[in-house]
């Protein structure tokens, strides 16, 4: 399956999807040192985003979240890429500062955890 989106930060990437149906708040939600989701009760709690293609509808919470995305990259535990339904300013700011490929405008309900994802330009390729 192929889906076209809007490039928020360009770059090609390939990896395994980790999908959250809920929004992600990076500040207090993901540990910048380990890349592990720490928000209590979050569906991804305890899972690592390191080297994954992180898929979620949109960001939420504190604007400090942008800095957490930057910290993930600096500490070598960032996702390879981010795919959103709608990238709001917190995530957009974070991926640009950290230089992580990011696409939005994608129907994320069509992707599930474990899918093989390829990002080429503005295209998301699932399990091909």
């Amino acid at each position, binding site marked *: 399956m192929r889906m076209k989106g809007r490039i928020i930060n360009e770059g090609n990437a390939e990896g395994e999807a980790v999908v959250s149906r809920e929004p992600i708040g990076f500040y207090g939600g993901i540990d910048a040192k380990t890349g592990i989701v720490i928000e209590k009760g979050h569906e991804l709690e305890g899972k690592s985003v390191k080297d994954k293609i992180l898929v979620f509808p949109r960001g939420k919470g504190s604007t*400090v979240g942008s*800095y957490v995305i*930057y910290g993930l990259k600096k500490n070598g535990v960032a996702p390879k890429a981010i795919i959103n339904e709608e990238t709001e*300013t917190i995530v957009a*700011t974070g991926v640009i500062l950290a230089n992580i490929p990011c696409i939005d405008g994608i129907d994320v309900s069509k992707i599930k955890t474990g899918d093989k994802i390829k990002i080429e330009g503005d295209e998301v390729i699932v399990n091909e």
Partner: protein
Amino acid sequence: MYLTKEEEKMLEGEYGEATRKAMKLLVKLGDIYGAEKMVEVSSAQASGVSYKSIGDPGLEFLEGFAQEGARVIVPTFLNPAGMDLENWKKFDFPEEFAEKQARIINAFKRMRVTISATCTPYYASALPRMNEHLAWAESSAVSFANSVIGALTNREGGPSALAAAITGRTPEYGLHLEENRKPTIVVEVEAEEFEFGLLGNLVGKMVKNKIPYFKGIKKATTDDLKYLGAAMAASGAVALYYVEGITPKASEQETTGLEKTTITTEDLEKRKEELTTADEKPDLIAFGCPHLSIAEVKWISDFLKNRKMKTKLWLFTSTAAKAIADRMGYTENIERAGGSIITDTCMVVAPIEQMGFGTVAVNSGKAAHYLPGFCKQKVIIDSMENLLEKWSE
């Protein structure tokens, strides 16, 4: 989005990596919000300064960005930090916190940001003019600049304000466009004597991100408007308001046919009760959210003549106002009565929950909004005069 030749050069990295990143961030944010071009800003004001707010991720970003060569090219001012930058030891700020806070300040200094460390830049070195485009981040200062001065700024985040400072530009959307600056709700004030912070807290909660047009406010000092705007930006997301007969451009606005709401003395009393979560003696009385003007410091100094505080009194202001207070003897008067003037920080962004406080009394509708969650404090809200009268002798 249309970019000038100069902006293209920035985006292509001709001015270095930090400028490239900053321009890219602004272009993407512009795309997200549908901006057609950039506007030049005459000043910027950066938030996200307290170590308590941004933690290690923010600290590491700022140090990294300074290392990459980020340098501001328009006058850029800084929001309050988490401590008095000179006298933190005297007021028992935690040592480890102070060390991290100093690193944040040094990173901003390296980027050539003016370490004004105040939420009232318009009182100390950064007074904009009407119709100037700005990229300010502190929500209360954004409201003041838009409403009381008639300048044009969106409510920036920490990184986007810094990006604007580095490129001298911001994408043209939101409150940079006249058509988005029209009032969307009329607020009729039917109270005579009231605290502007309390009114702001109530109205912000009611109108959320609308643009209120106030009627019925007969007079207001600059400090009154400071408290009104700050509280509306905290309990709601109000970045612009008008007060009939008082703020610029109010007379040019069309209000017929707008949604309308009325605020009475009873509404304000009810809101005061809702915000008051303690009735014991406060551990701390804290004024200066936003930072006190020199006129307020003088008023407090005069009020406390021949009085003694029965609890701790902390007054937060800028180093600029403090210097005048020292010169005028206000600081000495206030200290004689048992109070202190603390610069560069405030009761919200300082780590007061680590410093042994549990109940704080304030006059600020903004502080009353943030203290329970962000600082784990019980709150008493009242006028400066009532609080000082009650807790001094």
